């Protein structure tokens, strides 16, 4: 039995210690917004926040996460889809199939929290998630829009 702090709630989970956090979230806790894309931390579809840092959950074993660490998934990013990154995604209609977008949004939210004035160069080097539909142009536009709005990173 392990204890995890997920989206502000303490949750007991029963899984082998080497189970990747991704599959604990999806299969034990039932939070399927975090996606499986590759299992080797290449594509970023599984990105969650651990203490605010974007982390690829598919390659992180349950054993390596403590009860003190705060895990936030796409479901917990905002209570109602109102996070500025989510709103920018809707405004610019970023998603196509949408499968990779939870990870894109979580990676972006972490980037802008740490670096609210991210430049195009910062975005290019930090947002390395794979999207096969090819939404990159809209991802970039949406991020720059959030940066221009200045709603993130304060306090």
């Amino acid at each position, binding site marked *: 039995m392990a204890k995890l702090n997920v989206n502000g709630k303490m949750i007991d989970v029963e899984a082998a210690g080497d189970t990747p956090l991704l599959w604990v979230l999806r299969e034990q806790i039932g939070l399927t917004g975090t996606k499986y894309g*590759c299992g080797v931390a290449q*594509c970023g579809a599984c990105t969650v926040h651990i203490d605010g840092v974007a982390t690829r959950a598919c390659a992180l074993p349950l054993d390596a996460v403590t009860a003190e660490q705060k895990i936030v998934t796409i479901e917990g990013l905002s209570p109602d889809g109102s996070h500025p990154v989510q709103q920018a995604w809707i405004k610019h209609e970023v998603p196509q199939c949408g499968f990779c977008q939870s990870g894109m949004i979580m990676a972006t939210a972490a980037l802008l929290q740490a670096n609210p004035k991210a430049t195009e160069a910062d*975005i290019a080097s930090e947002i390395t998630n794979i*999207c*096969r539909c090819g939404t990159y142009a809209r991802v970039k536009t949406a991020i720059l829009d959030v940066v221009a709005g200045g709603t993130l990173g304060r306090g």
Partner: protein
Amino acid sequence: MSISTVTTGFRPSRRSLLAGSAAAAGAFTFGFTIPFGSEAQAQAVVPEINAWVVIHPDDKVVIRIARSEMGQGTLTGLAQLVAEELNCDWAKVTTEYPTPGQNVARNRVWGNFSTGGSRGIRESHDYVRKGGAAARTMLIQAAANEWKVPASECVAEKSVITHKASGRSLRYGQVAAAAAKIEAPKDVALKDPKDWTIAGKPLARLDTAPKTDGSKIYGMDLKMPGMLNAAIKDCPVFGGKVKSFDAAKIKDMPGVKHVLPVGDSAVTVVADTWWQAKTALDALPIVWDEGQHAKVSSASLAEWLKEGLDAPNAVVGNQNGDVKAAISGAARTIEAVYSYPFQNHACMETMNATALYTPDKCEVWTPTQNGEAALAATAEASGLPIAKCEAYKIDLGGGFGRRGAVHDWVRQVVAIAKQIPGTPVKLIWSREEDMLHGRFHPLTQCKMTGALDKDGNLTGLHMRISGQSIVAGIFPQNIQNGRDPVVFQGLNASGPEASIGYTIPNLLIDHAMRNPHVPPGFWRGVNLNQNAIYLESFLDELAHAAGKDPLEFRRAMMKNHPKHLAVLNAAAEKAEWGKPLPAGMFRGICQTMGFGAYVAAVAEVSVSDDGKLKIHRIVAATDPGHVVNPAQVERQIEGSFVYGLSAALYGEITIKDGRVEQENFDTYEVMRLEAMPAVETVLVPSGGFWGGVGEPTIAVAAPAVLNAIFAATGKRIRNLPLKNADLKKA
């Protein structure tokens, strides 16, 4: 009935299983509605106006969509076409999928479910618009009946019917039940596209919000009461079989419930969770009988295809004049050999499906580009008649052709479910399985021979394609006299689908079919991809050899191809072809036609002294006849360049010991944001025909860039991907 309205009462019926997943997901809201089976029809409170339109008393408009949504926006585009003729309030529109079983039961009232070949809108615009128009006519008639006035005195706008003379009005929701009982009109007139107010406009997609908060449920996310999870390994060498596996070694591992054969070539582990299934499967000793292809390599395939470049037997795709005479009498002949590798679709969501089998019913839930093909695969694999099977479509986490023609994963999940009757089972392919068992973009080579006269005009062209036929691999019954017509995409003499844009006095385009054991598939853009690279790169070679501007060299051969030419000109104008670029920047240009649309592109690139390529900007022009949603067309074009450039820059599946070498994104690289160029789209719809938009522009991505690289470096890259090419200054 909306899926989110069902919150309790799991029953092992087709509908409650999906509903069960909604309930299990708790607070999640769903972006799609539950499939309405015959059961739902019987219980339905709201009768349909016709197969395409249901209107609720509160005016909610439900538009039924037969094609699959996989990101391309067809759900929104098709709804726009129906809503345009329905004259309904767009703000009240939602959509739902009919099921393939319902389509069969109702004599295919929704037509073709297949969602590939960029044909979602272009092949159904007529009947879906007629569906909307017929429903509008019936709604107006219902109001006219109530008022006892002639229908001709009534008009409908934004879901409100008005009788002008008396000033009376009724909402669609008020007359929908009466309209449903009115006989459908035999013939309806459609609006002139210039009068459109919903179609043709850049309306917001209907399905965005659930893709931003984790609430959208993909096939991989399905949960059902009592469901088990399956991982699978198919013989890594295509055509091989399972010799033996030692189930005893893993049967006591956590969560493991079953270790089962799947057909004669695969093994599955079924467990409580997928991670447990995968972990146990990785530990399972399996001995393969690798069969006759275990020694095949990319090098041996290349040798075989090379032989086809000069083989005496080839099937003619397009021919005029006497190419042999033109070449032998030419002032100058130019020859070049090109090749294009296997590609994997690499959808972000790996193949998956959930199945429930009992001796008298088999049901499958799966992301599919063709619900009817998924249903057929379900019936075939279960051994039950179609009437006892059903397939439920779930929006796809990427399709690109992988989830259309071949439903290998559906056959597998049914074969598993059949061995554990009464238990729902979800099969998910690992990324490794998905890479090893793709249905790959075909392997081809091409020998180009061009004849120039003393003035540098192209007098003859022989294009010999050698290699794989997708049709032979998937629909062999469609090969007639050894001819695969799809091989000649973009090269046909004429026709509305994929014709060549040049008049060349002596022309021969032929194909020497060589089919490797690696299974081919329809990969977004299909054969237009490599055909455009071969032809458009070689025309660039000829233009340079003739000392002519690549645009002018093309224009001289396009007088009889005004639509091709207009799009090429549109791209050239927007990109300001001919105007000097900043130092170090270079352009390439190309055009082609496929999937019923005309496309052209100009790429602007730079190549550093140490050979690093940067693609700065691409201008893409397209004439698809009509544009139903310009905002979504722009997104399709941008996305198509990512897919096309991923292949051009990195995409390559290689074969060693009969199997695929690339097992994940670390070795099968794809384009990421950092490499994304600015894409400017130029939409020049000329009307009068309907072309596709999801695929055609992929084909101009690579040749535009390759031609720009030549302009920058003097190096002609004839073998992709570019990651293998040395672009360093000589």
